[in-house]
C-alpha cells in the first residue's frame, strides 16, 4: 500500500513538472500581452514532434538526444515569434474572445500541418541516454527519467525567477505585466518586449513537449489534452503568476495521481471541479490579482437600430424560402436544412448572453450537449418517446444553466470564458468517462423520432417550428424590459445597480434562458442524427457556436442568424471538398478576426450606414 502511494506521489510530481513547463509559458504570455493563448498546446505538440524528428535523425547518444530536445524547444520558440508577429500583434486591442478564437484558429492549422508532416500514426521516441533504468527509493523501484523530470520543474522555476528578478529585461517584463502603456511611455519598445516574451513562452511549451518524448507516444491529440490542463493550472494559480502556476501544477499533478486510485471514474472531472471551487473561493486564482483596469475599458454599445425595409424584406424572403422550398428538396438537402435551423437557434442562444448580456462563454456546447443527452438518456434507459425526450432536453440544459450560470455570471472577461470552458469540460468528461450511464465514447445510438416525424420533411418542419419560435422568443426578450435591463447592466453595471437592478439575477436568468434554448437545439439535433456522442459537448462545438455568433457580428440582432447560415454552409463545403478542412477553417477564422471584427452583419450594417 505504502509503495503504491509513494509511486503515485512521485509520478504526480513528474507530471506536475511537465505541466508547469507548459503552464509557465502560458501564464508569462498572458501576464504581459493579456492574451490567453489557446495555441500553447499546439506549441507543446510541435515541440514533441520536432524533438522526435531531430532525435531520431541525429546520431544516438547524449548529444543527439539532449541537443535534439533543446533544438526542438528553440525552433518552437521561433514558431511562437512568427505567430506573435504575424497574428497576435494585430489583435492586442481586440476583445478577449476574438483573441481566444484567433489562437484557436492557429490550433486548427497546426493540427492539419502536423497531420501532413508527421502522419496520423502515434510516434514513439527513444529513451533518454543515461536515464534509461530505474532507481530504488525507500524500497520502491522508480524510473530515473521520471526522477529527472521531478527536478526539471523547480529548476525551471528558479531560472525563471532569476531571469525576471535579476535582469533588466525581466524587470521590464514585470513592469509591463502591471502597466504596459506606462512602460511604453518610459521609452521601452513594447513590441520587441512582447515578441521576446512570446519567444520565451513558446520555448517553454516546446521544451515541455520535447521532454515528453521518452515518456509517451507523440500524437495529434496532445494539443487539446494539454491545453485544457494547462488552462486549469494557470487559472487555479492565478493568471500571470509563476509561483501560482507551480503550486497549481503540483496540486493538479497530485490530484490526478491519487485520483486514479480513489475515483478512477472521474479523474478528468476532478481537475475541473478543483478549478471551479478555487474560482468560487478566490476568483482570481490562488496567487492572482484582480486585473488593474477592470471597468476602465468599457465600451458602451449603441442601441440596436430598427431593421431597414430592405433588410426586413430579406428576412421575410429567408423565412419564405425556409417554409416553401423544402417539399421540393431531396433527403440530403433536408438534413442540411434541418441542421441549419438547429444551428440558428444554437447561435441565437449564445448570442443572447454574449450580445445583449455582454458575457463571454467558451463552453456553450455544454448546454447543447446536455439537451441532447437529456433526451437520449431517456430513450436509452426508459425508452421514452420523442415528445417526452424533446421536453426533457431544455429541462436538462436549463438545470445545468441554473447551476453553472450561478458561478459563471459572477466573473467577467477571460475568467468567465475560462470558467464556462471548465464547466463544459466537466460535462464532456462525465459523458466520456461515465460509460455505464452514457455509453462513453460510443455514445447513445437509436435516438429516433416518433413515427409521425420520422419522414425527413416532417422532422424538418418540426425543427423549423421549434427553432424559429424559440429564436423569435429570444429576440422578443431582448426588446422587452428584461432585455433593456440586461443591456443596461452590460453597459454600466454600477449605474444599473445604483438604480435598483439586481445585475447578478438578471444575468443569471439570461444565462438560464440561453441554456434552455441551446438545450432545445441539442434535443432536436439528437433526434435528427439518431445518436448522441460526447463530442456534442467538446471544445470544437463550443467554438462552432462562437464562430457563428462572431461571423454574424456580436452586436447585431440578425448576427447569429446570418452567422449560422454562413458558417454551416462554409463548414459543410469545406468538409465535403477538402481533406484538410481544419487548415482552411483555421484560415477562415484568422481572416474573420483580422478583417471582419464586427462580423458579416456588422460589416453590412456599417456599409449601409456609410451609404445613408
Amino acid at each position: 500500500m505504502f509503495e503504491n502511494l509513494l509511486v503515485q506521489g512521485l509520478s504526480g510530481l513528474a507530471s506536475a513538472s511537465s505541466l508547469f513547463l507548459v503552464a509557465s509559458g502560458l501564464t508569462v504570455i498572458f501576464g504581459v500581452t493579456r492574451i490567453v493563448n489557446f495555441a500553447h498546446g499546439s506549441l507543446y505538440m510541435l515541440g514533441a514532434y520536432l524533438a522526435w524528428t531531430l532525435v531520431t535523425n541525429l546520431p544516438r547518444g547524449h548529444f543527439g538526444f539532449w541537443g535534439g530536445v533543446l533544438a526542438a524547444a528553440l525552433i518552437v520558440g521561433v514558431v511562437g515569434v512568427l505567430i506573435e508577429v504575424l497574428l497576435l500583434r494585430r489583435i492586442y486591442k481586440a476583445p478577449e474572445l476574438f483573441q481566444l478564437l484567433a489562437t484557436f484558429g492557429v490550433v486548427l492549422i497546426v493540427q492539419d500541418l502536423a497531420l501532413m508532416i508527421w502522419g496520423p500514426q502515434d510516434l514513439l521516441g527513444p529513451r533518454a541516454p543515461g536515464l534509461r533504468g530505474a532507481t530504488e527509493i525507500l524500497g520502491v523501484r522508480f524510473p530515473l527519467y521520471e526522477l529527472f523530470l521531478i527536478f526539471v520543474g523547480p529548476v525551471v522555476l528558479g531560472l525563471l525567477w532569476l531571469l525576471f528578478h535579476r535582469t533588466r529585461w525581466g524587470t521590464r517584463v514585470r513592469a509591463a505585466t502591471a502597466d504596459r502603456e506606462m512602460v511604453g511611455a518610459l521609452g521601452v519598445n513594447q513590441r520587441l518586449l512582447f515578441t521576446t516574451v512570446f519567444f520565451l513562452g513558446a520555448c517553454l511549451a516546446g521544451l515541455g513537449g520535447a521532454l515528453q518524448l521518452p515518456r509517451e507516444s507523440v500524437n495529434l491529440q496532445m494539443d487539446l489534452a494539454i491545453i485544457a490542463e494547462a488552462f486549469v493550472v494557470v487559472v487555479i494559480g492565478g493568471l500571470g503568476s509563476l509561483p501560482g502556476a507551480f503550486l497549481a501544477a503540483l496540486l493538479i499533478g497530485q490530484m490526478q495521481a491519487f485520483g486514479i486510485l480513489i475515483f478512477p471514474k472521474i479523474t478528468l472531472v476532478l481537475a475541473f471541479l478543483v478549478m471551479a471551487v478555487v474560482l468560487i473561493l478566490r476568483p482570481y486564482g490562488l496567487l492572482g490579482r484582480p486585473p488593474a483596469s477592470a471597468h476602465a475599458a468599457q465600451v458602451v454599445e449603441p442601441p440596436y437600430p430598427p431593421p431597414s425595409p430592405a433588410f426586413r424584406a430579406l428576412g421575410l424572403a429567408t423565412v419564405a424560402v425556409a417554409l416553401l422550398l423544402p417539399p421540393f428538396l431531396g433527403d440530403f438537402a433536408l438534413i442540411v436544412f434541418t441542421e441549419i435551423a438547429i444551428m440558428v437557434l444554437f447561435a441565437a442562444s449564445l448570442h443572447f448572453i454574449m450580445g445583449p448580456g455582454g458575457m463571454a462563454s467558451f463552453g456553450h456546447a455544454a448546454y447543447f450537449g446536455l439537451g441532447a443527452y437529456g433526451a437520449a438518456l431517456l430513450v436509452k434507459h426508459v425508452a421514452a418517446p420523442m415528445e417526452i425526450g424533446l421536453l426533457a432536453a431544455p429541462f436538462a440544459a436549463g438545470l445545468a444553466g441554473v447551476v453553472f450560470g450561478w458561478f459563471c455570471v459572477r466573473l467577467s472577461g477571460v475568467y468567465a470564458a475560462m470558467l464556462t470552458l471548465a464547466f463544459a469540460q466537466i460535462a464532456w468528461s462525465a459523458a466520456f468517462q461515465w460509460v455505464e450511464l452514457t455509453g462513453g465514447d460510443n455514445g447513445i445510438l437509436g435516438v429516433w423520432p416518433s413515427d409521425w416525424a420520422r419522414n425527413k420533411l416532417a422532422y424538418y418542419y418540426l425543427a423549423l417550428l421549434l427553432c424559429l419560435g424559440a429564436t423569435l422568443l429570444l429576440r422578443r426578450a431582448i426588446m422587452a424590459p428584461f432585455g433593456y435591463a440586461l443591456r443596461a447592466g452590460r453597459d454600466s453595471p454600477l449605474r444599473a445597480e445604483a438604480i435598483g437592478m439586481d445585475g447578478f439575477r438578471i444575468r443569471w436568468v439570461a444565462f438560464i434562458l440561453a441554456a434552455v434554448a441551446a438545450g432545445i437545439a441539442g434535443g432536436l439535433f439528437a433526434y435528427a442524427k439518431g445518436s448522441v456522442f460526447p463530442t456534442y459537448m467538446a471544445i470544437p462545438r463550443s467554438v462552432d457556436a462562437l464562430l457563428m455568433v462572431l461571423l454574424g457580428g456580436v452586436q447585431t440582432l440578425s448576427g447569429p442568424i446570418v452567422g449560422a447560415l454562413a458558417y454551416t454552409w462554409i463548414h459543410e463545403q469545406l468538409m465535403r471538398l477538402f481533406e484538410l478542412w481544419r487548415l482552411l477553417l483555421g484560415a477562415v477564422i484568422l481572416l474573420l478576426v483580422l478583417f471582419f471584427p464586427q462580423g458579416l452583419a456588422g460589416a453590412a450594417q456599417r456599409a449601409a450606414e456609410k451609404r445613408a
Partner: protein
Amino acid sequence: MLEVEGLHAHYGRAHILQGVTLSAAQGEVVALLGRNGAGKSTTMKAIMGLVRPTGGRVRFQGQDVTGREPFEIARQGLGYVPEERRIFTELTVMENLDVGRQPPRAGLAPWTPERVFALFPSLGAMRARPGGRMSGGEQQMLTIARTLMGNPRLILLDEPSEGLAPVIVERMAAAILELKREGITVLLSEQNLHFARLVSDRACVLEKGAIRWEGTLAALMEAEEVRAQYLSV
C-alpha cells in the same frame, strides 16, 4: 522646443481636443491651466502619443512626432509623468527607476539613482521598498524620478500637486525649479493656481478643448475676468 498646432483628439465620438495650440521654449516652465474636463490630461496624452491625435501637429525639437509610438517619442527625449502616478507597485524603488532608464543624452548630465536621490532624499532611504507600499507623496516623487532616469529634455507633468500634503507640495515646487535650473523644459497641468505661480513662467488657459488665454502668470493674476471665466469653480 515643443510646438503643438491645432491638436484634435476624440474619445469614441466625444470630441475632447478641438484644436489646441501651444508651445514651450527651451528651459521654460509652462503651466496648462483649466477646470476638470477641460482637456489638460488629454493634451498631454496626445502629445505623448498615448491618445492618437485626430488632427493637428506636434513638433519636438523641430521634428514632427505626431502619431508616433509613445516609446519612440519617449526616446526622442520627451518625459511623461501621469496624473495617476502609475508606479509599478510590485517593483521596488530601484527597479522602478531601472525601467525608466535610457542612454545619456548629449549636452545633459545623465541622471543616476544617486542624483535622483539627491533631488528626493526620502526615496534614497527606501530603495528596496515595493512601490505599492509607499505614501502618495513618495509615489509622486518616484514617478518623477522614474521619468528623469530617461534623461528627458522636456517633461510633461500632469497635476503634480494633486492630493498631496502642503509640505510635499512645496518640496515638489522646489524640485521643479531645480529641474528648470538644469535646463529641462517643463509643461505642467494644474488646477492649483497657487502651485502654478510658484514655478511657472507662462500660463495657457484651456477650456472645452482649446486654449482661451495665454500670458505670464503675473498678467493672469491681473486678469480677474479670465480667472473668473475659466478657472474659478
